[in-house]
């Protein structure tokens, strides 16, 4: 069974049922916390690993549920806006992979950094942006996270070094960020994320070599959703055990559909790196419901049944909901209340993302270099020539009263 699960959840029949049975819960007598058992981890060059018995409290349960729902609903809204042609160009949705981001964020501490690639909307939200900022970025409006200058894949936050539009380009950057942390004696890690597709980029091997050579606190995390664009992992990777592919970098395979397993794996990994033993390589076995991007219906290289089966049996949100409700940690009504709130939040975000203005064209020339030399712009006639008045996007924003 484990071997089936490790193949990026190619949804073999009943795999999920078996996984569910490994989860048991025990209410602790002294507190409101509940104990859960999570799917075993697989270890590479490690003598011990994260615990399979984890504790969850009520506050966290509600928080995790809310965050996963926000991401799910925000991505659905993005998908709809794309279909309405209000988001143009490129758009890669995270639906199905929510437990990865929310679980990892739950184990992060102040100062930890994240860098990822295309599927960055959820992370941008978790690291501090609002749903409005993300959806407005996708529609190219001022309310966007970077005022519409980035758009899909190019979103940033404090300690979030961004999505990235070039597959694999973020991997060595993550090692660099981790080196800075080590140099400054920070007890922090840099979560360096990539997909199973980008796991085959040469830059990963250059980055893991440097990271191990210099003992950097970087956690390379492969979110294995089973497909690099339209190619299943078995047809793109000579080894699909992504957690072992750092060779001399120890690794852990994690059930990426279980937020509690993800959180515990990250907590353990952080401790490991804090003790100066980094780097590490994690594989989160997960699944994406949508196509690679909006131009990919996502059904030509897998069946609709396969997707439906994962939705029914392994969905990270439904699975989590069942467990926290069954264990009595929270009530169904409380979750319904959250659903309602989230729906409202996203609806309002969509409203702003479709009505807000666009940054004035002067921002085209802002922020190319530090202190960009003033450009002369000739008008329709020569006496209408003006000097581009702004050097930074911040100045443009101030001039229109948006900062």
């Amino acid at each position: 069974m484990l071997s089936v699960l490790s193949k990026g959840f190619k949804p073999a029949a009943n795999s999920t049922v078996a996984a569910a049975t490994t989860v048991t819960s025990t209410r602790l007598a002294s507190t409101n916390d509940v104990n859960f058992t999570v799917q075993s981890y697989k270890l590479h060059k490690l003598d011990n690993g994260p615990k399979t018995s984890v504790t969850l409290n009520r506050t966290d349960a509600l928080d995790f549920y809310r965050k996963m729902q926000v991401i799910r609903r925000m991505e659905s809204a993005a998908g709809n806006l794309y279909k309405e042609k209000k988001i143009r160009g490129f758009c890669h949705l995270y639906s199905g992979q929510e437990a990865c981001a929310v679980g990892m964020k739950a184990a992060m501490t102040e100062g930890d950094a994240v860098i990822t690639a295309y599927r960055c909307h959820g992370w941008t939200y978790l690291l501090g942006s609002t749903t409005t900022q993300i959806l407005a970025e996708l529609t190219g409006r001022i309310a966007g996270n970077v005022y519409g200058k980035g758009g899909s894949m190019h979103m940033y936050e404090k300690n979030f070094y961004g999505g990235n539009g070039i597959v694999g380009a973020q991997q060595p950057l993550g090692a660099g960020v981790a080196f800075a942390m080590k140099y400054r004696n920070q007890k922090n890690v840099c979560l360096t994320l990539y997909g199973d597709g980008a796991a085959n980029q040469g830059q990963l091997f250059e980055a893991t070599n440097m990271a191990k050579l210099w003992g950097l606190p970087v956690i390379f995390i492969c979110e294995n959703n089973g497909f690099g664009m339209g190619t299943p992992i078995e047809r793109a990777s000579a080894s699909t055990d992504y957690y072992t592919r750092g060779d001399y970098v120890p690794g852990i395979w994690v059930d990426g559909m279980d937020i509690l397993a993800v959180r515990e794996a990250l907590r353990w990994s952080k401790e490991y790196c804090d003790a100066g033993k980094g780097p590490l390589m994690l594989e989160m076995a997960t699944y994406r419901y949508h196509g690679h991007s909006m131009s990919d219906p996502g059904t030509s290289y897998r069946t609709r049944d396969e997707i439906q089966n994962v939705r029914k049996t392994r969905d990270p949100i439904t699975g989590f909901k069942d467990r926290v409700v069954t264990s009595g940690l929270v009530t169904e009504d409380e979750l319904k209340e959250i659903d309602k709130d989230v729906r409202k939040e996203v609806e309002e975000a969509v409203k702003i993302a479709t009505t807000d203005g666009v940054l004035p064209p002067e921002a085209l020339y802002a922020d190319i270099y530090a202190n960009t030399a003033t450009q002369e712009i000739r008008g329709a006639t020569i006496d209408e020539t003006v000097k581009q008045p702004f050097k930074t996007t911040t100045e443009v924003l101030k001039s229109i009263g948006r900062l």
Partner: protein
Amino acid sequence: MAAFRPFSSLLVGGNTRQLLAKRGAAHFNFQPSDAPKEYGDVRQKMNLCQAVNNAMDIAMDTDPSAVLFGEDVAFGGVFRCSIGLKDKYGADRVFNTPLCEQGIAGFGIGLAVAGSTAIAEIQFGDYIFPAYDQLVNEAAKYRYRSGGLFECGKLTVRATWGAVGHGALYHSQCPEANFTHTPGVKVVIPRGPTQAKGLLLSCIRDDNPTIFFEPKILYRLAAEEVPVGDFMIPLSKAETVRKGKDVTIVSWGTQVHVCLEAAQLAQEKLGVSAEVIDLQTIQPWDEDHVVESVKRTGRLIVSHEAPKTSGFGAEIAATIQDRCFLHLESPVNRSCGWDTPFPHVYEPFYLPTVWRVFDSIKKTVKY
């Protein structure tokens, strides 16, 4: 100097809102071409995507050593250019690679040096940079560094290229000039389906490694009658697509259509007769063709989507001032993308639109 006004209004005499409202529309009108008779009488309507597919089909049919590979190409590639070819030629000749551009390029060089015709697809021109080292240091110099013992002339790298209306920073760039600074590789860009087919076949069969950039906005939008047979358009030959006598405009790819429109506008509004040349092969380029034209018209405008600074327009301008100095009536003008990263919401302002080319014509003629 006039008080500050948004420069978009200065540039086009319109307003931001109108321009942005038009974002969905292409910034040009495709102007189909009529292929010369010698390319064959039997013709079929094809768009640029189908023309590329057709060229690869012919290349694979006529050359059993030809193989096609790249990210997701086995089921057609993201733009569907290779659709049906795996079924026709088998999975050992049309196959997917992992997502690793440097590997794809290097693998292709190895295949080609061993004697196989290698057609490699890089999904976006913007992703060609991880493969840059392989193309510049390996592919371009193999023949030279081995004194002619080894070469990878059977390598053709296809990559999508250029503005598409909404591609933002990493799905829109025009990296041709990055490669023209490298002797040993050829760089080719078609303006329509007929050229795509004829030039791609030439690239595949040329004895040098070639990089073939396909304007992705034209894949579906550009359709014309294309000869169905096997024909090749010679490399390093420019084509005059509009005759004129007052000013020469040199361009390539999508921008040729913008220039044609600007030339028409100049004829109507200014009575200026502009000649438009499609360079087709950017490196090595057809100097004589452009020189002949400039000597007649006395004026030159070069227009490309890539940023102006160090764009290939700079090379053309330098050559023309060298070879046509005493014929020039005005400085060589460059109407190009601004020197910014390819912007997301500002694509309509970034591009050298019809109005900007028109302005260049006016400026050049009235110098």
